[in-house]
């Protein structure tokens, strides 16, 4: 039920918003076409402005993943993390999920292929991936776009939230999937 409602909202959200804004605009006698063009002109500038920030972050994270660093960190962290009940297979995922969305999906795909779609560890991995957001990417891109280089507590807050997210998804997964 909830699923159907969310699905309907997600497919109709954009058409509805575009419809509503243009109808309301013309009702208020705004010259909709000219106004759209005026606003739209700024789009290219934003796209170009974020290029250096995206390159800096994506290249750094891409190199890090290619070097095998994540496997190395996983190895060192595994005694501690299995102690708190995290399956060893999920450790690389726990690290990648803060760095790269496509990377996390890739790791999830691997876990699902190895264990099957019905396995507990696959469901945990799916929950951990679904509840993640690529903190480093978002911070670099969003702050970069307005020229903010001193992130203050945003970075610590984001990383803390990521770590807490790993534990919360393990906990909720344990309750829901067993």
């Amino acid at each position, binding site marked *: 039920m909830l699923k159907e409602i969310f699905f309907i909202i997600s497919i109709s959200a954009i058409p509805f918003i575009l419809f509503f804004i243009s109808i309301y605009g013309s009702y208020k006698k705004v010259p909709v076409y000219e106004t759209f063009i005026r606003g739209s002109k700024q789009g290219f500038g934003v796209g170009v402005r974020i290029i250096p920030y995206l390159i800096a972050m994506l290249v750094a*994270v891409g190199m890090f993943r290619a070097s095998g660093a994540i496997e190395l960190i996983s190895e060192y962290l595994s005694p501690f993390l299995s102690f708190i009940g995290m399956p060893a297979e999920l450790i690389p995922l726990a690290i990648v999920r803060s760095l790269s969305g496509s990377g996390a999906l890739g790791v999830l795909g691997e876990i699902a292929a190895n264990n099957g779609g019905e396995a507990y560890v696959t469901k945990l991995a799916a929950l951990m991936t679904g509840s993640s957001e690529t903190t480093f990417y978002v911070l670099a891109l969003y702050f970069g776009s307005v020229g903010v280089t*001193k992130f203050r507590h945003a970075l610590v807050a984001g990383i803390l939230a990521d770590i*807490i997210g790993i534990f919360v998804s393990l906990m909720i997964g344990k309750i829901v999937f067993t």
Partner: protein
Amino acid sequence: MINYIWLFFIVSSVIIGFFTGRLKEVGDAAIEYADIAVRLSIALVGVMSLWLGFMKIAEESGLVFLFSKLIKPIIKRLFPDIPADSKAAVDITMNISANALGLNNAATPFGLQAMKELQKHNNNPDKSVASDSMCTFLAINTAGIQFIPASVMAVLAASGSSNPAEIIAPCIITTFIVLFIAIIIVKVLERVYPEPSKRLRAKEGDSDA
């Protein structure tokens, strides 16, 4: 801080790559991701321009003002720095809603626009320093509220799960718990490390007394 993190990624990749014998892969990744980054930015231009165009209509018709009045109570509590009629409220709400619905490509332009608005109300003398509102917004954003984890469901379906949608409810619960904790963390941290502009104001207050 970003300087150290970036340096850490680059330097440790090369050192680790050297020892794992994957130096070539590290180099290839650098070239490959530079290319991906540019294509990603260009891919954003279309949606960004579309949203900015419609936002202009919404702004000039007074819709933005109406909407921001509607969600004022929440915004005022979370972002005390931004004026009640600011467009930032709309962009922030749209960014979070689009993310929650799994419309990631649509969410980014809203988010970038929100940052631009927040930067206008950044009271720090040095505008390269993040404001409290920016940190709060990004904490909410990176908590990653998720109603439809579409790509995750696709992976589950492809690997033979009988009911990929069972991931939806736990995702909603998890991300809401994380969101709640993230807001607490960011609000505590902004008191521990106050904005430069607020430290200045606090000092002026002292000398008045």
